[in-house]
């Protein structure tokens, strides 16, 4: 718990000379002993986040988005680019389209690669009759070859979208967003703290703004799939933040009763300890998303795969950044507004000053050899308590499914060993 991790930090410092070699920054990052100070430099991160968000909001307001066909309405025709008489060019397709419908399409392009290469034609909304006529014209003149090897209208895909469809999806998405935010705030407030919920939502706001901003700045097409993808980012972004906060919570448990570490220090330590995990999970999340993106664009050109993967990729990236640089600093700021934590930080300072004066040869605050008597007594008490809890923990961990295994529980109870319940610690391991 709190003291185990803390002792680590200090013990490793102390045993620096016993180490075989000095560590590079990268090694420290890997080991989680990096001592990167995210909290002290928070003003920088805030400023950066503010600038990024301003740029994003500015772009969204002044530049807007590139709406997909679902938002403006229209018809899209897709057919294999391989015709019975050789590859079909976009100009040919345009000509047939204009002949059949009476006006030229608004856009024609070749997308994808290999066997999956398709000609994509977009135009204003066509009637069902017109689409039918167009399909027949395309087949008779260009003979696109479908999956069965023969050319028929079955090889041609069409999609007629009303301009309100995207709006309808967006409207529902906004309702979903509101509901999710309420639920997740309740969830975080119950299982963590209200301050953590607030900090997590700040990070979330950053993720959503930057992801939407990137779409606006780069001009990626926004489709309903993008909107839904954006919403699932919420889950991932919070996933990252929750993992960091869980560690912060663990590191700062009973912090107020001790005077060895301030809240910002404990939070920073938690950040360092989870840093490698944050990076790791981001990489592992991005690997499949990247594969999806490359294949989606490379083979299919555009569509659901690309839309979902792109928005996820941007969102995961933003989510990682915000959970490291934004969520925890905000949490620290919110927490340090409380007098109790300020008071504790002052105690830590004064004690450290004292410690330096009285015993300069050892900087170990943990040994309890120096400092004010009352503090030490308090610390020792906490130690003893934590120790008991540790024991209980190990006992409990030895039987993870103890609600499944009644026999084990009885046996342990018979031995008179507490299984962790007596500590009042949330075990959180009830399984369904």
């Amino acid at each position: 718990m709190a003291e185990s991790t803390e002792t680590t930090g200090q013990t490793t410092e102390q045993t620096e000379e016993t180490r075989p070699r000095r560590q590079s920054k990268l090694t420290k990052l890997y080991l989680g002993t990096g001592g990167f100070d995210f909290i002290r430099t928070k003003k920088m991160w805030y400023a950066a986040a503010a600038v990024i968000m301003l740029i994003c909001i500015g772009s969204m307001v002044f530049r807007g988005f590139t709406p997909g066909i679902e938002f403006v309405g229209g018809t899209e025709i897709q057919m294999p680019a391989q015709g019975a008489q050789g590859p079909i060019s976009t100009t040919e397709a345009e000509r047939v389209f204009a002949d059949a419908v009476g006006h030229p399409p608004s856009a024609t392009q070749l997308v994808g690669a290999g066997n999956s290469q398709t000609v994509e034609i977009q135009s204003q909304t066509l009637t069902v009759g017109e689409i039918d006529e167009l399909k027949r014209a395309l087949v008779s003149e260009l003979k696109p070859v479908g999956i069965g090897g023969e050319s028929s209208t079955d090889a041609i895909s069409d999609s007629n979208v009303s301009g309100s469809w995207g709006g309808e999806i967006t409207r529902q998405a906004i309702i979903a967003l509101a509901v999710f935010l309420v639920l997740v705030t309740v969830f975080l407030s119950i299982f963590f703290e209200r301050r953590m919920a607030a900090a997590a939502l700040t990070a979330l706001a950053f993720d959503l703004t930057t992801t939407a901003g990137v779409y606006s700045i780069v001009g990626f097409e926004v489709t309903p799939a993008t909107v839904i993808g954006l919403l699932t980012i919420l889950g991932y972004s919070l996933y990252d933040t929750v993992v960091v906060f869980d560690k912060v919570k663990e590191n700062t448990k009973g912090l107020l009763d001790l005077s060895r570490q301030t809240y910002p220090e404990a939070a920073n330590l938690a950040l360092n300890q989870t840093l490698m995990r944050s990076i790791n999970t981001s990489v592992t999340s991005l690997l499949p998303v990247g594969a999806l993106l490359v294949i989606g664009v490379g083979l299919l050109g555009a569509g659901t795969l690309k839309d979902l993967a792109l928005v996820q990729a941007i969102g995961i990236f933003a989510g990682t950044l915000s959970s490291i640089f934004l969520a925890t600093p905000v949490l620290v700021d919110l927490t340090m507004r409380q007098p109790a934590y300020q008071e504790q930080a002052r105690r830590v300072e004064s004690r450290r000053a004292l410690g330096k004066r009285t015993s300069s040869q050892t900087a170990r605050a943990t040994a309890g050899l120096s400092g004010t008597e009352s503090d030490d007594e308090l610390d020792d008490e906490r130690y003893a308590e934590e120790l008991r809890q540790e024991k209980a923990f190990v006992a409990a961990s030895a039987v993870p499914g103890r609600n499944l295994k009644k026999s084990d529980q009885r046996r342990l109870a018979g031995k008179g060993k507490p299984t962790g319940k007596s500590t009042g610690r949330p075990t959180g391991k009830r399984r369904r």
Partner: protein
Amino acid sequence: MAPPAGTIRPGRYLAVFILIVAALYGLVFFTGSGKPTPRLGIDLKGGTSVTLTARTPDGSEPTQEALDQARAIIDERVNGLGVSGAEVLLDGKQIEITVPGSRGEEAKTLGQTAKLGFREVIAGPFDPAALDQQTGQGGDTSGKGDTGSAKPGDSGGPGGGGAAGSDRGAPAATGGDDQYLPEETQRKIAEAQRIRQNKALLSSGPQAGKALRAALEEIDCSEGAQDPLRGNDDPNLPLVACDQERKTTGKRYAYLLGPVVLSGEAVSDASASMNSNGVGYQVNISFTGEGNSKWADITSRLAKESAQHPGNPSQVAFVLDTEVVSAPTVTTAIAGNTRITGNFTQAEAEDLAQILKYGSLPLSFETSNASTVSPTLGASSLNAGLIAGAIGFALMVLYSLVYYRLLGVLLIASLGLTAGLVFPVIVLLGRSVGFTLDLAGVAGLIISIGVTADSFIVYFERIKDEIRTGRSVRSSIPRAWVRCRRTMLSADAVVLLAAVVLYILAVGTVKGFAFTIGLTTVLDLVIVFMVTHPMLVMAGRWKILDNRYLSGLGMVTEIGSSVRRSKKRSGPAAARGV
């Protein structure tokens, strides 16, 4: 502080897991069709899907009853197509029609059929584009015929039944602006209603002419024009409405119509057949009992009027969502089955019959999305999804092997088992609750590879934390487990929450995305609890994990041992404190 003898029985967990998996695969292979294939969505196997959004006159939420009724009617129509595997689902305000295979084109017009009403033609047709010549004469009608034979008011024939469905498609597709600008549209509707449904239109005297003139100025009968009153007209008021584009002139004309005298629900059946004593096709209508008597009243009254003004026979208009589909003249009182004759082609007659028969939906629908995916495109989408999944998985295998080494093997095994668990669940869900795996769902599955791995990484990193404090690998595992369990549960809970909220509230095909993400999140927890942890506990007993090069715990082990050494030096008290 050595933990008490490990009492977790990993073998038991694994055995239970294997039993569950075996049971699932047993269900897959020995129940239902026995084929281990998930139900694929239209976008993966090809077919037609149509999404219809209900519209109400005042923009209020349609009642559940009306939606259910509409769904039932559309379902009946889809069944009428005779395509197996077709489905009609109600999802909030949306009705989704899916028709597998290549015979789904017809489904696109099924749902477009909207409210039908019979209105008396008071005056018309007018050409709104040429207001000056408005003479209010009923066209050169030459209703020749037997009982109830009727000919559309224009010598050019009805606007072409073939275009009946399609013409409706166009306004439908652009008709959704009210989602964006509800106020603007509300205003437009109110304005159109005030002018084009003015009570004064029916009065006698000068204000009727004035009102008609204003209405003709207001109405836009140009090609593809969007009628704000579509589906929003008041049946009890007169109406100025356009007809469908006429083949002969390529123009649309306007009619002044009386209130609705008979609603489309009075039609019990309609069919198309060859005209027995003439050329072309005819449409046969039969009415319900109540409809029959009403229809008899109307036609006898109109026939009388026709007799009084032989030059200008009375017409009755079939109005479908403020558009005149057909306006035959009535020369004889009709009791019972009615035939509409005219220069119909077979397709036109069939379409008109369809509209008459099924036009009586309790709600108007807008076609939000109608798409046909060719089997070719579906196959390449599925292919792309599978390739992307394979590559994503391969990258993950590489990364975890490089980074976690032996633990990486465990990670890969867990990932593989998750996949092995997700697959039968999806197959079974497809069979039991009709879950279809669409392209978005496939994307969700691939993206979940990362999330699933996240849980393992949280666990492994936690083990590293413990080792760093000087614990042996073996003693680290239960401690790390106790501590990371909560983290994993709460983090997964957040993802699950997002997925569930999305699944319930979001609309559209990407629902599958939310579903697969939620599903894998739950199954991920099952795997972590029932497989990964027990396997780690077993692995923790192997000496090989203490090998810093193989375990993937590398330098952390080194720190751990140096911590241990220093603790020994600084005395048992400090060591115990950790």
